[in-house]
């Protein structure tokens, strides 16, 4: 366990000045900032909207493309970056000759990639809420304060996080095995497009394909939204964590983690 913590801290130390780390911070910041500017400039047109609609539009603008594009591509990039740092510096041999178990070294890197995605999604929640509330302060005509979306938004993003673990583990393994960017990137891109098409067309086995999971997570949300007008006129958005696709995502993450470990054990270190 100590080896794992040391390796994890070292992962942070190594990446803290690179895009691998900062992309997870800058992406939500920039997107939410853009959205903030957009809403600010058209505040006159939307000032009549009720708070709940404002929040849904504000968060939905990002969530809409989050499942189909942003999240899968971010995963491809993060999985690549945390491995590329060792490929580039030729440091796999040093990592695996440290007096730390190979499982700790490998596991720390794996969980660091998870951690970066988690941070990124958490910041999306934080910045969405922050900028939304900021809008209601600088433009009091926008009635963001009417509705509280914190709980739902957190659950939605947490579900997205769970839905991303399957892809992340596959991309992580690809980036670990291949030195170049094109292979994992190409495979990730094609699979994401396929996943979107499969899920978008409502193929009934799409839940088995990890690259469809973020899309499915968002999709189930929209279906839920339309189905349930809640008490007091406020729509109640249900987020169900225990769906088949989330189960498959977690199972794949676990399976690929274990398989990856045995590959690392057998693989000769260049």
């Amino acid at each position, binding site marked *: 366990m100590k080896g794992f913590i040391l390796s994890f*801290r*070292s992962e942070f*130390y190594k990446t803290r*000045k690179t895009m691998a780390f900062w992309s997870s911070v800058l992406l939500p910041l920039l997107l939410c900032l853009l959205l903030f500017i957009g809403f600010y400039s058209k505040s006159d047109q939307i000032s009549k909207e009720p708070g709940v609609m404002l929040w849904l539009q504000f968060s939905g603008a990002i969530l809409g493309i989050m499942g189909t594009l942003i999240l899968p591509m971010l995963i491809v990039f993060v999985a690549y970056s945390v491995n590329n740092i060792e490929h*580039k510096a030729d440091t796999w*041999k*040093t990592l695996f*000759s440290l007096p730390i178990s190979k499982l700790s070294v490998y596991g720390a890197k794996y969980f660091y990639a998870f951690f970066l995605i988690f941070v990124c999604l958490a910041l999306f929640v934080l910045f969405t809420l922050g900028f939304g509330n900021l809008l209601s302060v600088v433009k009091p005509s926008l009635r963001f304060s009417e509705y509280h979306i914190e709980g739902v938004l957190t659950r939605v993003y947490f579900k997205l996080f769970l839905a991303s673990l399957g892809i992340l583990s596959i991309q992580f393994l690809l980036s670990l095995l291949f030195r170049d960017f094109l292979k994992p990137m190409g495979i990730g891109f094609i699979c994401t497009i396929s996943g979107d098409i499969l899920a978008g067309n409502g193929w009934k086995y799409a839940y088995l394909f990890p690259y469809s999971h973020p899309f499915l997570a968002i999709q189930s949300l929209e279906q839920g939204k339309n189905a349930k007008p809640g008490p007091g006129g406020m729509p109640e958005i249900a987020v169900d964590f225990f769906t088949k696709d989330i189960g498959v995502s977690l199972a794949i993450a676990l399976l690929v983690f274990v398989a990856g470990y045995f590959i690392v054990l*057998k693989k*000769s270190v260049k």
Partner: protein
Amino acid sequence: MVIRTEGLTFNFGDQTVVKSLSLQVPEGAIYGFLGPNGAGKTTTIKLLMNLLKTQHGSIHIFEKELQSNRINILSQIGSLIEQPAIYLHLTGKENLLNRALLLEIPAKRVDEMLDLVHLKDAANKKAGQYSLGMKQRLGIGLALLSDPKLLILDEPTNGLDPNGIIEVRELLIKLVTKYQKTVFVSSHLLAEIERMATHVGIINHGELLFQGSIEELQALSQPLVQIEAENTVDAANFLKKNKVDVADVNEHQLFVPYTDKKQMGEINALLNQNGFTVYSIGKQQKDLEKLFLAITQNA
């Protein structure tokens, strides 16, 4: 023995890269692991570091089996394998601090290392801007950071200028004599090893061709009497009949093991008196470079 391998064999696919290697590295030695490029040196070192899985044979380090005592053994080894593994986006100091973090070593030691490898002035410069020699020195600093009992260095003087080579050599000698470390250092340059090693192993095509102390290696290189004569083959046969050993014969020269000056005079007289004109005669010492070539080429 600090390192002891028995029957160590390693195949890449169907190609045998290391053949039945039996290394013996005593404590406090500078063991020069010598061989031409592609002889299997780096593969052997990776096996010693458990980066490659031992296929056949056994490895004992500090008299403990490597596979089952991996972490314990690795915690006492510092290594530099091929080109130094350095994060180019971090500064030299950050590279050392990162390793110190992983090895739980106080940050104070980082400054000592920077001082030792003369990188104090460049400590806060990005390693990507370092010269080849500076990177190599940083690599050595990283290897020494944990104050290991055993240092395994793969071609540590590669890419260094003459001053740098001398510095590394003196550093290694100091580590062994003053701090009782053991150093296992590979090289394809005999002259380099000859100047610092106490023990030598010569490897080619994955096979260990010689292993012993540097004195034993030098003893192999016996002086010879080189004789240039009219008809070398007949002369050699004549000498043999007269109970003089002949080491080698070719078209122009023949060689007899040297014992002393008197013996050289006697051979000269013997040949001349029996109708073999001697054009020249002299003592010849095979240098280690030639010996090394002879050992690696005959294999």
